[in-house]
């Protein structure tokens, strides 16, 4: 049996809920959106021990109590600065060559 991750009381966690099931979405939403549920994620402090996948009540930054499925313990951020963009490197090179003082400009060719 794989070990289930368990959060401790007071840990910063994230819970998930379905707000509206597919088929109960607002009228007039595009077809692809109507076919999927509207989901919600909220972060807060765990009110009791729980394993990932079970129901948990949290207290949010605004002091609200929210119950949902525990999906992450200590959720972090993964966004960054991505990869260098060759097209923009090319743009930068050309702009600098064209508009900087020619005498002191580095030779970027």
């Amino acid at each position, binding site marked *: 049996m794989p070990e289930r991750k368990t959060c401790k009381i007071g840990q910063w966690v994230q819970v998930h809920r379905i707000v509206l099931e597919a088929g109960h*979405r607002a009228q007039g939403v595009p077809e692809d959106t109507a076919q999927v549920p509207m989901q919600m994620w909220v972060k807060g402090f765990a009110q009791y021990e729980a394993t990932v996948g079970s129901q948990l009540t949290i207290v949010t*930054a605004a002091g609200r109590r929210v119950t949902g499925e525990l999906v992450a313990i200590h959720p972090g951020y993964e966004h960054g600065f991505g990869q260098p963009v060759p097209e923009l490197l090319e743009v930068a090179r050309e702009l600098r060559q064209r508009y900087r003082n020619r005498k002191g400009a580095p030779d970027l060719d």
Partner: protein
Amino acid sequence: MTDRSYEGVMSRKNEIILKSVGIDYEKFSQGRMAFDYEAMMENAAYSLDEVGEIQRAVGVGNTPLLELKNLTQMARDTAPRGYGARIFVKDEAANPSGSFKARRAAVSVYHAKKNGFTGVLAATSGNYGAAVASQAAMQGLNCIIVQEVYDSKGVGQPEIVEKGRKCEALGAEVVQLTVGPELFYTALLLLEETGYFNASLYTPFGIAGIETLGSEIAGQVQQRCGRPPDAVVVTHAGGGNVTGTARGLIKAGCASTRIIGASVDLTGLHMASDRDFNRKSFTTGHTGFGVPFATWPDRTDVPRNAARPLRYLDRYVLITQGEVFYMTEALAQLEGIERGPAGNTSLAAAVVIAREMKEDEILVVQETEYTGAGKHPSPQLTFAVQSGVEVKLGDPAEDVPGKVIAIPRCPEQLRVREFDLKEAGCSYLRNAVRHFRLDDVSRAEMAFLASDIRWDVGDVRRVLTELGVSCPNL
């Protein structure tokens, strides 16, 4: 037990909004359709001086006006001899939350606190969330931001993820949702549950907050150049930026300054589509908001939208995603100023517009926004490629929203596409006829419609008649 179903909550919309905004919109109503816009702006919000005082107290506004000499050179270099206006930018990234939205939030949060609310709520995926969170932190209120972040697979665009992070960093609870207009339903439920103030983008508070941006531009340009600006380019999305800036300029005596709106062209992408959601690199300042909000402002979370851009726009131009990324790079490389891409929408348009203006004319770009992880060309373009969008160097004419981002090779390739304001006005009138089921209109109603789109009453009468509406003689 309160009915929490979608229909049940939406049927309580008016009472929830009345309680959470505290404005009795009925007071300004004039029959079934018209309302007294100026009276609403004067009586429901705060005066320009009061707004200035509120903002000064929380370090909002009074941002620097920077002259972009190298980008001016770029415009002149690609313009006929004697053309190429001086380009200035209002560095709104210097606001506490990193964008001009701090101006709107400062007034809403001040008003909420003054009226005894314990917290504020805003439904937004944009910089406004961070602005409300920042002001709530500063003024000591709780804050909930309801944000559209993910597609149905839980994938989020880096810029939106970053904005959510910033809200959390500033102490807000962030309710993250998948794509869909039912975000509003969730916001209503939360307003009901918490009794918080609805810091809507579209109340008179939100618009009055931006008027100082217009008046500051007027004052700073006058001081630097001894004359008013000839034109101001405004990134146009929900209409508040255009409306507030224009009103501020007019109040500061710049009645003849041309107001030019600019949006990123995302034609063809559906804003509520689960599939299209992550195929756009811009989450604001685009036509998905700009066009529907201009042609029907009253589609928001309040009964009467205080943002009414057709009252103020002299011209509306579109620019591609690739052109905005190009100018974001140019701003960094040539001016040494690194700012977030979405805020550079008006900058991209400005370089093109400056070419049409004489060298001694003055063109102001009225905003910048903060940049950082996620909110930067490299993560956004990396994500675009991962989402199946082709990124290439090429003529902006080859740009296809959701499919191809064509980054210009040189400034000569930058151009703007005109959005016909006459057509926008016609579209507004069609929407009015449909929304209010108009068979006939009174003279006063025709006058209201005319002022709401800045047309002659005679032109309104002609179009309404064509639409089969019975109109009185003038």
